């Protein structure tokens, strides 16, 4: 193959596009759309990040600045944790819009994440969340189709294909020329993505992860380049090529994703929140009331404590039995809550796995799964947030239970509603409230994100290889059609 000839053909293809009103209009429209998507998403994410970080700081400050109180009141006073947007969410918002952003943490409960009050007020639906990921996954292939659907069929229709072959241009050189031209357009379309990734790096994302994301998008667009040239090589008429490619685009980019979600919801169905909450309440009922040290559910635990401290009565214990009971109850309840929570998460992961396999039917879906996982806006990342929030909850609740057990005397505790001085003594200093653990940042789990996205990247790679083989096969067979 003579690459100089391929380059000359590619250069002419660009010249053709620049002289075609349709191509220029498509290039301009797509550029505006991608840049607009990037700017709007960056603005949205930065606003969300600032808002949530401010809320988070305020929540911590509010908790820590509480006056002297009974530690168990602080357990019920609770704390808010906010899910801050990942740096790469400027590219892919992922499940951010559908998953809650703030979680209220308190004792004895695992609350669902909900949305911040100002989150949805300006949200006008799906189009209002036009992200660069959406633009690249759905709209850029359309641009490439508009540019490339006639790349080879046009030569056939105008008989220039035979003319080219008659002057010793090889079919593979013609094919390579078209591939270079269309890949150039795809590469240029990735410039705004690179800017977005640069911004994500400046916000703390690892450069390697950003480059990995870029390579995934490049593979996807290259797959489309191959598919487009393969179809264009196969068709005698450009109109047929356009029809087939648009049908393929609708199938890959529009149809498969909701079909996959629908099948995943059916195939990996799990009980809704109401059913789940009833089941949780039933399970918790047997675990005892941690507010009542006389609850028979804790008899064995009390016996253990008495034996451990070698005393006859709970009044003689060097620690406050109420705090210990509360701690023990929290541990048992958390085990039960985690069991249900893990079940729900596993069911959600099962659905994700079903959707994952649908990536075999659509490179757009493979890229969507890849992009969300790398960006840290996937279901996995959301579940990590839930786990971290639960760790924060359990940690501060048990720290407060320890304070309850160690700092408060049992006699003051049981008399606090009858005796003012006892009540005052059960209020412990606010200095203890500085106990909250932070939720880990997205930037710190790049290894998990890369490993979770790797199967999707491999799927994209195979799509690209398949596209290349198909395209080159059609291109060489197409030479026979030229005559």
């Amino acid at each position: 193959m003579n690459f100089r000839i391929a380059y000359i053909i590619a250069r002419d293809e660009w010249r053709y596009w620049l002289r075609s009103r349709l191509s220029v209009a498509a290039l301009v429209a797509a550029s505006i759309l991608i840049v607009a998507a990037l700017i709007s998403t960056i603005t949205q994410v930065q606003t969300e990040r600032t808002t949530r970080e401010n809320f988070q700081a305020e929540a911590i400050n509010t908790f820590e600045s509480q006056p002297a109180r009974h530690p168990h009141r602080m357990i019920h006073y609770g704390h808010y944790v906010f899910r801050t947007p990942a740096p790469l969410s400027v590219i892919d918002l992922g499940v951010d819009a559908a998953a809650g952003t703030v979680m209220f943490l308190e004792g004895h409960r695992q609350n669902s994440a909900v949305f911040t009050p100002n989150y949805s007020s300006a949200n006008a639906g799906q189009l209002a969340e036009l992200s660069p990921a959406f633009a690249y996954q759905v709209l850029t292939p359309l641009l490439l189709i508009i540019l490339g659907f006639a790349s080879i069929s046009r030569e056939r229709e105008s008989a220039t294909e035979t003319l080219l072959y008659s002057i010793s241009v090889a079919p593979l050189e013609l094919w390579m020329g078209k591939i270079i031209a269309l890949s150039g357009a795809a590469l240029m379309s990735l410039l705004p993505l690179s800017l977005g990734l640069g911004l994500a790096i400046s916000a703390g994302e690892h450069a390697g992860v950003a480059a990995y994301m870029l390579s995934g998008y490049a593979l996807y667009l290259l797959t489309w380049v191959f598919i487009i040239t393969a179809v264009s090589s196969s068709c005698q008429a450009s109109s047929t090529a356009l029809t087939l490619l648009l049908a393929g685009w609708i199938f890959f980019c529009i149809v498969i994703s909701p079909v996959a979600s629908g099948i995943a919801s059916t195939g990996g169905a799990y009980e809704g929140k109401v059913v789940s909450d009833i089941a949780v309440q039933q399970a918790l009922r047997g675990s005892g009331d941690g507010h009542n040290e006389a609850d028979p559910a804790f008899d064995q635990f009390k016996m253990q404590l008495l034996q451990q401290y070698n005393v006859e009565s709970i009044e003689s214990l060097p620690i406050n039995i109420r705090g210990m009971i509360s701690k023990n109850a929290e541990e048992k309840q958390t085990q039960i809550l985690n069991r249900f929570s893990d079940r729900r998460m596993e069911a959600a992961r099962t659905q994700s796995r079903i959707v994952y396999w649908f990536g075999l039917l659509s490179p757009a879906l493979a890229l969507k799964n890849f992009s969300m996982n790398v960006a840290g806006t996937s279901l996995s990342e959301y579940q990590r947030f839930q786990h971290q929030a639960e760790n924060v909850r359990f940690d501060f609740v048990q720290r407060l239970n320890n304070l309850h057990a160690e700092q408060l005397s049992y006699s003051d505790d049981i008399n606090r509603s009858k005796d003012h001085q006892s009540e005052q003594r059960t209020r412990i200093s606010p200095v203890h409230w500085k106990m909250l653990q932070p939720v880990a940042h997205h930037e710190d789990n790049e290894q998990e994100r890369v490993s979770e996205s790797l199967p999707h990247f491999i799927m994209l790679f195979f799509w690209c290889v398949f596209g290349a083989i198909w395209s080159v096969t059609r291109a060489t067979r197409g030479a026979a059609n030229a005559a």
Partner: protein
Amino acid sequence: MTKSLVTASKLCVERGNRRVLDNISFTINKGDIFALLGGNGAGKSTTLLTFLGFVKPSSGEAIINGIKVEEDIQAARGQIAYLPESANLYAHLSAYENIEYFLSLAQISRSSQEISLSLDDVKLAPKMRIEPLSSYSKGMRQKVAIALAMLRRSPLLLLDEPTSGLDPVAIDEFNTILKALADAGTTIFMVTHDVYGACEIAKRVGLLQQGKMASVFEAVGETKISAEAVHQAFRQSQPS
């Protein structure tokens, strides 16, 4: 002594169960114009495509300047300038740009002066040369294609129905250019429906009938081939 540039030797081409070319043989001498006539489906274009290497013969040989096409397609194509029937070239490019583009792909270097001279030779109006071909008539596009072929300086020019769709004036202009090319030593092999045009310029005319060479007419000296005789043979060759 004249030497043959093109040789078809017992050429057979089959498509499916149908024999499209059936044992045809002919030669074309250097600098001659050979016109292949025949009805629709007689095998004219297939003969051209076989010499271009786009169609593989089931038996026999197509030879250009001593090169067997089947053995070395690229070398054989290097001897040919080809004008397909619908030689639209590139509608978005001007005459200059089309010629420059094709020459660069053929890896042939020609100065802009040479290109202008070539366009002068085919009498393409200078003001049109920078206009995109989308604004050209078919005759004008043919002129550009001929200019390109001239610039390639290929020994053999293959033409597929070159005058179809041209008006009489354009046909006359086109034939004049072809004669000038032949006089300059270019061998021309054309397939056409135009009996009178072919007889006007061709040294020899072959008549294909259902894939077989039914008859060959030859001009003797300055006497042109009798169009009436060819026309009569053509009519007789058509299935009733």
